[in-house]
Structures are given as structure tokens and as C-alpha cells.
């Protein structure tokens, strides 16, 4: 047993009691990071982490993040530390400032030990497209299964007990899906709840700061720290921050859960459905009201295309500044156009180029109404239906993924409802900007599957309360690839 196998709350008690020091924790986290064989890291920050941890000598009893080691996805700006978003186009780029969330964690004396690998520029959901190659799922030592992405290295860091907390970003499901595949708690709060200042933009109307922990309580404690107004992000909310952990143990008596019929109907894994149904029965026993609700198949099956068109179009525009002139490798050329062409041709991977072309195609004057504008209209209808359901229910509750992590090379019918609906519905939370959390449900042949709970905007406190009830039902608090458990469902 190592201290790093504990939750943040447990670690905090040990730190305050001086059973362990931040320096010892950082040393152990760094040793584990260096021993990682899942390709989780862009950069391990040994000197910086040890220097900072060694200054932390007087425990702060009221600060749960004091001395806690953490990892950040490599699309968060870190002052003086190379940050590439796992793309060759940003090789060598060293930000001049810290992202708002990095600042907040530093101010609370959490210790950044590494920058994590990701799908290139956060565009991708497999953990296979970063410039350092495939990131592997720590639950599968044979390295045959996807880790999921785009926040793959951040997921590995927490699932392999290297740190108890990591920062990710979530534009479609990039924290909440890998949370399902890695047995973690993955939280994406309301759009605007956490400042995105210093997060490399992918699709700003959908981008969220999100994060991984191994317990719902830790997730609530993290939001206490990360949430709040930041004048440098004009989209950050003015609403006051709550004590998000304050109603965790209040249960779900009288709370109303909507289960989306079409998501269940498009999930074919019988074990997933059986365990999900068992969780519904357990919730009812706790006094919750559960109802199967039809969302509308046409709306749900269009989520994937709507997401793809909007996100690729926004990315095309956002990433126009990656020109090899102001930052990133400079390859020269006879004209400034050639300088840019060289930097972008050499810097972007095949997948990124394809996504950009799709975005550009949907923005062409001839196509804009039929593709981009229409996707924005579809988004509006999908969001209206989501909010309509949440006007009558406290939560929308569904499996976070249709199965355990898939094997590399496994193919799926990209026009099937299992793909279009069951595998891609988490983008609903991004379309509507609603708070959404994934928690582990059960293990199928030793591999985790999660469920997702989504609530009303800015009602994170209630969301954590519901998620904690599910965590108690499953018995999978503080699950990881190291802390293996059977669960109670």
C-alpha cells in the first residue's frame, strides 16, 4: 500500500498528520511516472516538482489540495514548460503564462509532476493520435485495448495511481468517455463554471475544462478549487461558487432520474444493460424516482454529425494561428505563404488535416447553410429537448459507453445506432453546456464500464449528490487499475 493509492481526502489527512510529506509524495509520484509503460506523459517535471514540493513544510488543514501531486493534459499553458498539445506543429513552444486552472492549483500548493499525452490538439477519442504514438489502457497490461481520449495520459495518470487528480479537457466526451474506459470519475461542469484562460481552444462553443479523480468526493473538492469567475475568460460565469461537497451524503430520496430509451435500445452488451438495470432498481430502493423517457431517435442519431461539423468548423478557424511563424517549428520558404504551408504540412498529422478539411468544406459559401448552419440548428433542437427533459427531472442517467474499452483495430458500423447514439451521446452535455459526470458501474471480465449522470446548468452540487449515491450502490469508490475491486452490483 502506498499513499498514492489513497483518495485526495485520505491523502490530505495523512499530510496534515505529517505521516507523509509533499516531497515524499512528489518523489513517489515521479518514480511511478518514470516507470509508466502506457505512454502517458509528454514531459515529466522532476526538477520543478521536487523544488516546489520541498518548500511545502507547514500543512494547511483547510486546504485539501496542499501538497497533492497532479498531472495536466498538455493543452494547458504552463509557464516556462514546453506545451505541445501532442502535436508536432507546436514542438518547442514554451508558454509565457500559466492557464487559470494551473494558477489556481499552484496557489493552493498542489504539485504539478507531469504534462500528459493526448490525442493531437484534443481532436480524437481514442488516445492513439498524439505525436508520441498510442497511449495504452492501464487495465490491459498486454496493451491490446484503447485507453480512450482525447485526455488519454491524464486518465492513465489517475487510473495507474500515479496521481489522485488530473486535468483534462472535454469538447465532445474527452474526459467522460475515457473515465468510463479507465474506471474513473470524470467530471465536466457547466460551460463557464471553470475558466478556460490558457487552455488551447479546439471548439470554444463546446470546450470545457474537465478532470479525473477516483471518487465523487474528490471530484466535488476539485470543483471547489477550480470554479469561479475569471475576467480573462469572457465566457466564465459570475455565479457564486458553492460548497460542492456539502450535500454528498444526502441521498437521492425524491430525486427524479430520466433514462433515455433510445440510448438503452442502441446498447447491445447484455451485461452492461443488466448492471445498468440493477443500478436503477438500487436507486429506486434509495427512494429515487426512475422513468424511461424517449428523447427522439432522429435527434439522437444526429448528435455525431452535428458535433463533427460544428467542432471541425470551429477548429479550422481556431487553429489558423498555427503558422510556424510566431511559434512552432520554422521550416523556411520562398514566401510567407510557403513558410506557413511548410509548417502546417509538416506539423499536422493526417487525421488533423482531414478534420480541418471537413471543417473548411462545411464552411465553404456553397455549403455553409446546408452543413454548418444546419448543424447549429440541429444543436438548438437537441438542446431544447435535453432541457425539456431536465425541466421535469433532476438528472439524465445513462451508460457512459456501450461497452468496455475496445481492442485496437476493432471495427464498428459507423452508421449504426450503437455508434451514432450509444457511443456518442455524451456530446449532449457539450451542446447544452450542462454539468455531466461519469462514475464506474461495474467490471466486465476485469475491465471497467461507467455510467453518466447529467444535471441542470450550474446545479453541480445536486449532480455530485446523485453521483455519490451511485458510487455507494456500485461499491467502486477509489477504483483504479491498481486498487482493483469487485463492486457490489
Amino acid at each position: 500500500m502506498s499513499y498514492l493509492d489513497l483518495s485526495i481526502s485520505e491523502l490530505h489527512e495523512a499530510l496534515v498528520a505529517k505521516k507523509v510529506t509533499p516531497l515524499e509524495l512528489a518523489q513517489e509520484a515521479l518514480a511511478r511516472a518514470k516507470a509508466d509503460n502506457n505512454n502517458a506523459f509528454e514531459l515529466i517535471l522532476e526538477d520543478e516538482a521536487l523544488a516546489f514540493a520541498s518548500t511545502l513544510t507547514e500543512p494547511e488543514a483547510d486546504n485539501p489540495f496542499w501538497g497533492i501531486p497532479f498531472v495536466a493534459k498538455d493543452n494547458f499553458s504552463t509557464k516556462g514548460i514546453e506545451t505541445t498539445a501532442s502535436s508536432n506543429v507546436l514542438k518547442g513552444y514554451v508558454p509565457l503564462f500559466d492557464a487559470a486552472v494551473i494558477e489556481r492549483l499552484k496557489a493552493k500548493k498542489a504539485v504539478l509532476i507531469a504534462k500528459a499525452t493526448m490525442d493531437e490538439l484534443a481532436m480524437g477519442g481514442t488516445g492513439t493520435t498524439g505525436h508520441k504514438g498510442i497511449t495504452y489502457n492501464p487495465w490491459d497490461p498486454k496493451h491490446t485495448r484503447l485507453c480512450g481520449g482525447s485526455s488519454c495520459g491524464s486518465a492513465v495518470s489517475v487510473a495507474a495511481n500515479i496521481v489522485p487528480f488530473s486535468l483534462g479537457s472535454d469538447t465532445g466526451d474527452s474526459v467522460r468517455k475515457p473515465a468510463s474506459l479507465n474506471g474513473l470519475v470524470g467530471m465536466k461542469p457547466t460551460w463557464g463554471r471553470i475558466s478556460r484562460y490558457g487552455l488551447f481552444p479546439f471548439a470554444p462553443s463546446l470546450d470545457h475544462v474537465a478532470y479525473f479523480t477516483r471518487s465523487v468526493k474528490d471530484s466535488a473538492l476539485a470543483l471547489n478549487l477550480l470554479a469561479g469567475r475569471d475576467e480573462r475568460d469572457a465566457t466564465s460565469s459570475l455565479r457564486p461558487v458553492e460548497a460542492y461537497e456539502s450535500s454528498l451524503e444526502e441521498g437521492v430520496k425524491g430525486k427524479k432520474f430520466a433514462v433515455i430509451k433510445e440510448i438503452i435500445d442502441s446498447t447491445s452488451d447484455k451485461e452492461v444493460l443488466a448492471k445498468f438495470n440493477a443500478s436503477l432498481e438500487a436507486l429506486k430502493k434509495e427512494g429515487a424516482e426512475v422513468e424511461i423517457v424517449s428523447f427522439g431517435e432522429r435527434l439522437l442519431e444526429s448528435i455525431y454529425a452535428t458535433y463533427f461539423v460544428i467542432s471541425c468548423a470551429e477548429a479550422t478557424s481556431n487553429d489558423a494561428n498555427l503558422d510556424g511563424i510566431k511559434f512552432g517549428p520554422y521550416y523556411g520558404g520562398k514566401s510567407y505563404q510557403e513558410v506557413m504551408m511548410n509548417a502546417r504540412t509538416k506539423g499536422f498529422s493526417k487525421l488533423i488535416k482531414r478534420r480541418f478539411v471537413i471543417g473548411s468544406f462545411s464552411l465553404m459559401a456553397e455549403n455553409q447553410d446546408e452543413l454548418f448552419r444546419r448543424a447549429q440548428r440541429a444543436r438548438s433542437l437537441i438542446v431544447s429537448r435535453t432541457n425539456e427533459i431536465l425541466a421535469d427531472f433532476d438528472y439524465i442517467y445513462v451508460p457512459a459507453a456501450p461497452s468496455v474499452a475496445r481492442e485496437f483495430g476493432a471495427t464498428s458500423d459507423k452508421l449504426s445506432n450503437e455508434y451514432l447514439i450509444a457511443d456518442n451521446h455524451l456530446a449532449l452535455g457539450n451542446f447544452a453546456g450542462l454539468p455531466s459526470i461519469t462514475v464506474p458501474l461495474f467490471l466486465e471480465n476485469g475491465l471497467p464500464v461507467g455510467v453518466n449522470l447529467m444535471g441542470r446548468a450550474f446545479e453541480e452540487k445536486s449532480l455530485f449528490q446523485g453521483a455519490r449515491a451511485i458510487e455507494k450502490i456500485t461499491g467502486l469508490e477509489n477504483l483504479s487499475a491498481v486498487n482493483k475491486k469487485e463492486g457490489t452490483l
Partner: protein
Amino acid sequence: MKEISLEVLQDAAHRLMFELSDEELKTLYEEFQTLKKQMETIGKIEGVDEAEPMTFPFACENSFLREDVAETPLDRDEALKNAGNVQDGQIKLPKVVG
């Protein structure tokens, strides 16, 4: 909608300031065949063309301006730190005119 062809896709790539190899173009063209079918799901939504386009999840709550205080957020040396081709305190690029 514009007909999808290898030329149209290469044109899109050039507008984006990068080249696609023949192999990349072919893969993209094939990908578009599936993508077109996926995009058709949007058109099947009843009333989609009458809905208002949604650009952000919520209206932003900001209705004020910050104080107009002069500051120097970045000095020149810092601004040039990440540029690959710098000369005499400026980013150097090939001649544009003449």
C-alpha cells in the same frame, strides 16, 4: 452542396495552408462517403431548417467593460521567444513586396 471531388478537397486543404498527399486525399475522399451519410441524419430532423442556429450554450452574462488601465502584458523579448526566425528584434519572413 458542392460536389465532393479530389480537386475540391485539395482546394480546401490549400485554403487551410497545407498540402495533402495523394494517399491522404484518397483516404479523405473515402471518409467523406460515410460522413455524407452521417450528415444526412441532420436533415432528417423534423423542423431543423426552421430552428434558430445555436452558437453558444448560454448567453454570456457580461454586460460591462473592464476599466481602461494601461499595462504591458508582454515585452518584446518575451513575444519573440517562441518565434523560429528572429532578426534585430523582429520576426523575419521572406520579402512580400519587390
